[in-house]
């Protein structure tokens, strides 16, 4: 009988450490599948962050770095600039990328580094126990915003895709969501496209994933999916926020 679903060779088969209902695992799988489908696993180097996805390096079957908090795009820059033949990707959460690492991601994007950044936005600090993240939505309760995020004191959540999309340097910037099978299938197409832009040496690529945190949101896995849909989507519109300009036929 022909198998219609199996493990991807882009990942190991051991169980992951993520909480039940967390969509990190699905995002890992989409990346792992892409490494195999594009035939780039053996020349890929990933960079894992600090945060819930700190152990990313354990799951992918390619060479990996473990970086300091927020600096994955800098590590990726160093690797890619010195060995351009490698396919270099970062995997970062919202505290890592959108708080402590804003400088590194903006400048990597602005230099047009030919790397692929995977940004997992679950609107909270997961590993440290559910504190407010730069992406926490207005009014959202966290362990450090017991009364809900107060925009007068904490400002509004950072929309990283929109911020990066307005840079003049060419890039591929997209936001996808993990809240339904349909969106997951769409996300797969987007992540594949992001890696293809790197393989073709076209531009910097960045994919923001709206992801769940049932544990720290205090919701069931199913309710968490609904919470993405109802509470995050209005604030974080999905879609391709920027695509590199297509060169017209016959022009240089």
């Amino acid at each position, binding site marked *: 009988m022909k198998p219609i679903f199996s493990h991807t060779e882009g990942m190991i088969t051991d169980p992951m450490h993520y909480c039940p209902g967390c969509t990190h695992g699905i995002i890992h799988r989409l990346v792992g599948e892409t490494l195999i489908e594009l035939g780039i696993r053996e020349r890929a180097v990933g960079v894992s962050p600090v945060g819930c996805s700190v152990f990313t390096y354990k799951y992918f079957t390619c*060479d990996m770095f*473990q*970086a300091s908090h927020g*600096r994955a795009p800098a590590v990726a820059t160093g*690797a890619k600039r*010195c060995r351009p033949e*490698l396919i270099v990707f970062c995997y970062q959460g919202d505290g890592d990328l959108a708080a402590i690492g804003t400088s590194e991601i903006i400048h990597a994007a602005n230099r047009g580094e030919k790397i692929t950044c995977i940004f997992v936005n679950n609107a909270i600090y997961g590993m440290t126990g559910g504190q407010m993240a730069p992406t926490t939505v207005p009014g959202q309760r966290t362990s450090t915003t017991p009364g809900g995020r107060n925009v007068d004191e904490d400002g509004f959540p950072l929309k990283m895709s929109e911020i990066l999309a307005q840079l003049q340097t060419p890039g591929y910037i997209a936001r996808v969501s993990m809240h339904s099978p349909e969106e997951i299938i769409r996300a797969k197409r987007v992540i594949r496209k992001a890696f293809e832009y790197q393989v073709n040496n076209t531009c910097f690529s960045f994919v923001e994933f709206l992801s769940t945190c049932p544990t720290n949101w205090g919701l069931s896995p199913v309710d968490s999916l609904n919470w993405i849909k109802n509470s995050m989507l209005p604030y974080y519109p999905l879609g391709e926020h920027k695509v590199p300009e297509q060169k017209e036929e016959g022009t240089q």
Partner: protein
Amino acid sequence: MAKILMKGNEAIGEAAIKAGCLYFFGYPITPQNELPEYLSKRLPQVGGRYIQTESEVATSNMIFGAAGVGVRVMTSSSSPGISLMSEGLSYLAGADLPVVIVNMMRAGPGLAGILPAQSDYAHATRGTAHGDFQLLVLAPSSVQEAVDLTMLCFELAEKYRMPVMLLGDGMIGQMMEPVEFPPMEVGPPMNADDWALTGCKGRAPRLVSSLFLDPVELNAKNHERFEKYKVVAQNETRFELYNCDEPYDILITAFGVMSRVCKSAITELKKQGVRVGLFRPITVKPYPSEALSSAILKARRVLDVEMNMGQMLVDVQLAANGQREVDFMGKCGGLTPSIEDVVEAVYASLAKAEAAV
């Protein structure tokens, strides 16, 4: 080969190229700007890459990425920038990555001043960043020595798989002296085949990381690394003894360019019949403690001279081990103790030695 007149900063850049370093990441800061400027022009000529970074924080992580994929890489900065790199230095040490970092020290603390100082001795040799680790730190006293030691830095970084720092100051960086570049056979980075991330074709995937959550494993890892530091101390400690063949009453200790002011002072004192020797550590980490101890025992008293508030003094006192008194004379903030200052301080030390009899 004829000697050419070059600024220290530029000469270090050329020395790096001669040592086969093709990659430089850096952020501008006075007084080391001529080094990145020089390499921004030279590296593309030799097939290398110069990347100006957004901060020293990013720099230290970019060299982490570069060293991790097995290339020879360097950065340079000055005191406040080195502070910002501290986090990265800890990660580099924790992942056993060979990199060369140049620190052209300026006055501190804080934003302080841009003039020469030896303000980061303690930072470089002691409190570089969080965690148990050491850097290998070499302190040149002339432009030629900066060239020679820069080339040595790359060799040592790769041989021992550890970050190595060239600890200069604004004077070394800004000064021009005639230099020549010794021929050096350059191959690919040593030993990197065994661990560098180059894509896992034909082998198991690799990891470059400083994360060890298992306490037993981390304990073993740190012990292993400190065993390596012992080997480094055994094999690589370097120093200079000046005017120490004849008997001396006072032994001056000084490192870097400060030692040359002391040499001039010793020449003056010689004319006046005062017998003074000089001990100059070239590796300030590991510190040549045993050699200094022997030199100290031949003196009546020791005078430590630095362009700071006495950061190396602790190492000199440890080497003296209570056998001799150690005096200190220093200026900082961008001031340098002059030949006349050192002569005066030697007389003061002599007077104390006499009074103690």
